[in-house]
């Protein structure tokens, strides 16, 4: 695409309502935003930038039948403070077209990149047609962004013949390359789900997993301040393979713990008392909002509502959860525990009462053939101990057993159609039959769970490791394990949901190929893994526990 093309004058269209509607919020943001001490909070047309202002790429997300959210952030010096931008507003034009060459532009307008939001831009483009592919781009000054592809959700009531989506999580920049994203970007997907750990709070060391990419000293320490989180997002988002994956399809994102800090629970974290920790959470939530293609308005303070529902006609409905912001503190001091009574306390919660009620209510009302619960933690029981005496990860649903029982009972009582549970966090791939009672082999399978591995977290890994052989031996409902990196793809029709584990054999070096390690089918009306095919392993075949990065529930700070 040529530079300096004229995008034409801004049109008054429904997509601009968000920005007109912002005037009230804008005033508030000016009063309390970071730059309110700036006497001239002016909007200036910038015609030239020191470098490409679209260095962090573009994205789209939160697709509805008539709308998608477009995102970018102006950062001509992406690793410099404030992205190298001056503290004034900059108009950013945008276009949505039916074709990749932008000959049939159907919506366009002008958004404002505001310094108080690190010059990020969120455009909620309305008035689009359902179930359609679109292309979008931005222009600031004379600079034009790369074009992205996106897609609206099918019309309500329509049953699509087929729908495909990808699923990703856990992308520690310092653990390896985003080769998996490069391959994901080449898949033909209607949607990508991100289940959290988009960013890690840990310091990035110059000599870590990407020795060819030295980073300035300010990246060597953990993220605490808003500026730290902003800089870290910029570092991650500079990656061209991540940018390609964003540009390829709309994303629906949710967070896990590392977008703030390892294993926090609501306002509880061993690093600080709640009255201090809330500052870090507020900084992290704000930066997350600034860098994600979210329809939600910007958070003010330590709370941000993120759980939400997306309906894709009559075929598919996603309930996207937040299992961090409202949870009770981890039982028995967190970590791996045997004989922990506190995990059975029914007054403790993983979702919080409001989200739990919203989830069950939504599952009960759903008209969709496939009902997907997209969330972070392994839902199925994972006994880490092959000896008698079960050992459970207190950060997982196992640490909140009554919360899980309420969800599983709610699914059974409401006769939810084809419940599918998606999870991340673990840095491992697993497939499981979700049992009404995991300790009773005769208990019915009531749902199907697909745990997707990390994009890079945990480094290369191995096809099988000591943890996996223990999990398979101690948990009959877990039917598949892989300890390498990758993503998942799903192909959904009214009759079946097909899930594929797409694996890269290594991430510590660039250029790994991708292959399908295993595929499973779930048939309409029959919960559980109904069929499977597995291909041969590649990369390291087996590693002992001391040779491999432990699964996420065993990592990090322990209280």
């Amino acid at each position, binding site marked *: 695409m040529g530079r300096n093309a004229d995008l034409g004058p801004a049109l008054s269209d429904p997509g601009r309502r968000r920005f007109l509607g912002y005037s009230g919020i804008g*005033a*508030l943001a*000016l*009063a*309390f*935003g*970071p*730059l*309110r*001490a*700036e*006497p*001239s*909070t*002016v*909007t*200036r*047309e*910038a*015609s*030239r930038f020191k470098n490409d202002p679209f260095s962090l790429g573009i994205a789209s997300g939160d697709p509805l039948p008539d709308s998608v959210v477009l995102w970018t952030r102006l950062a001509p010096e992406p690793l410099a*403070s*404030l992205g190298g931008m001056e*503290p004034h507003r900059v*108009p950013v034009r945008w276009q949505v077209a039916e074709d990749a060459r932008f000959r049939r532009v159907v919506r366009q307008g002008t958004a404002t990149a505001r310094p*108080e939001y690190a010059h990020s831009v969120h455009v909620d483009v309305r008035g689009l047609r359902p179930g359609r592919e679109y292309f979008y781009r931005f222009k600031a000054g004379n600079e034009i962004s790369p074009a992205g592809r996106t897609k609206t959700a099918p019309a309500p009531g329509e049953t699509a013949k087929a729908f495909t989506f990808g699923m990703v999580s856990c992308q520690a920049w*310092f653990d390896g390359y985003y080769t998996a994203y490069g391959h994901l970007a080449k898949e033909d997907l209607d949607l990508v789900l991100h289940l959290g750990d988009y960013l*890690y709070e*840990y*310091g*990035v*060391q110059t*000599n*870590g997993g990407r020795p060819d990419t030295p980073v300035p*000293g*300010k990246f*060597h*320490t*953990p993220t605490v*301040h*808003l*500026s730290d989180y*902003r800089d870290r997002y910029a570092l991650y988002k500079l990656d061209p393979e991540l940018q390609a994956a964003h540009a390829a399809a709309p994303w629906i994102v949710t967070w896990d713990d590392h977008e703030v800090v390892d294993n926090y629970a609501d306002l509880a974290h061993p690093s600080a008392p709640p*009255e201090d920790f*809330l*500052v870090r959470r*507020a*900084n992290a939530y*704000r930066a997350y909002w600034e860098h994600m293609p979210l329809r939600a308005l910007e958070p*003010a*303070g*330590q709370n941000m509502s993120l759980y939400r529902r997306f309906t894709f006609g009559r075929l598919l409905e996603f309930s996207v959860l937040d299992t961090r912001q409202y949870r009770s503190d981890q039982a028995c001091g967190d970590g791996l525990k045997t004989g922990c009574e506190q995990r059975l306390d029914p007054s403790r919660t993983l979702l919080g009462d409001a989200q739990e009620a919203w989830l069950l209510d939504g599952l009960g009302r759903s008209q969709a053939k496939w009902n997907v619960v997209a969330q972070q933690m392994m839902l199925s029981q994972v006994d880490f101990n092959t000896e008698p005496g079960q050992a459970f990860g207190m950060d997982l649903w196992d640490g909140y057993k009554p919360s899980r029982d309420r969800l599983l009972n709610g699914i059974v009582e409401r006769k939810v159609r084809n419940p599918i549970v998606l999870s991340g966090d673990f840095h491992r791939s697993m497939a499981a039959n979700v049992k009404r009672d995991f300790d009773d082999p005769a208990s019915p399978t009531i749902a199907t769970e697909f745990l997707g591995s990390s994009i890079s977290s945990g480094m290369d890994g191995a096809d099988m490791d000591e943890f996996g052989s223990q999990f398979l031996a101690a948990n009959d409902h877990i039917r598949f394990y892989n300890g390498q990196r990758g993503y998942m793809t799903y192909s959904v029709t009214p009759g079946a949901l097909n899930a594929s584990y797409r694996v890269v054999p290594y991430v510590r070096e660039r250029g790994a190929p991708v292959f399908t390690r295993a595929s499973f089918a779930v048939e309409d009306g029959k919960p559980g893994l109904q069929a499977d095919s597995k291909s041969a392993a590649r990369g390291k075949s087996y590693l002992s526990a*001391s*040779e491999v*990065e432990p699964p996420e529930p065993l990592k990090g700070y322990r209280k």
Partner: protein
Amino acid sequence: MSVRKIIALVAVALAAVAGVATYTGTASAARQGRGAVTMTVQSGTLDVLAAPCGGRPLVVDLANSGAEGAYVDVFITPERPLVTSHDVISTYVPPNGDVALRVQVSAPLGSAGGTHSVSLRLGARGAQQQAAVTVTPKPSGPGANLALGGPVSASSTHGNFSACGGVDGNADSADWSTRTGWNDGTRGVFPDTYTVEFGGPQAIDRIVLYTLDSARYPAARNGLQDFDVQVLGGGEWTTVSNVRGNTTGRLEFPVDPAVSTESVRIVALASNSADYSRIVELEVYQDS
């Protein structure tokens, strides 16, 4: 560059009071007096060592006396030769709450002794406040610890640590991972190297190594087990000592006769926990 002013919306009242800058959002009269944040820079003089790891944190307190939370930017400008970890720190400040920021201030190796200032502003156009910083040249000569303050490098460093943690003058294992220490970043992979340089040949006669050894983390369980101590001369590394099966926290290596070297390194071959290499402090002396 063609710059066009479209809207000028806000005027901001600004008051500077005796070292404390006060900001009150006045974009809306109805909100006047809410969300007021003040910045206080720590009093007294900060002492830094003119070395890569010789920096010290400058504490800046942000207090919000209002009933609304606020997001603020602190702009930081060091006077030469000082260097600061950040030029901007942005943070949320909760209503009726405060936030302490730590700005790492350092001076490059070879800087002359003297007192200099760091300027801070709350907001890009805020009133300037100054902090005084005294620079001390890196010690040399008889009895000096040549490793103190670095420069230091490592084969890898765990994300919760800094390579500087092993040459920061703090050899107390009780402060491990909170205030001091180096931990490599590759679990279960050896060798790991930790290297300190002197910027030119120096005659050294004694090396002291502290590996992790506290009540909580005893050396026999968490310290270095097998390692070589090496010195660099003429582009070649020479092993001064090789240690096998170590279970103690402090090890001293006399170098007799003294050797001239521009760098000392520890090559860690195994740790007692089989996962990571951990060094609390590395010291190198001349004429001791």
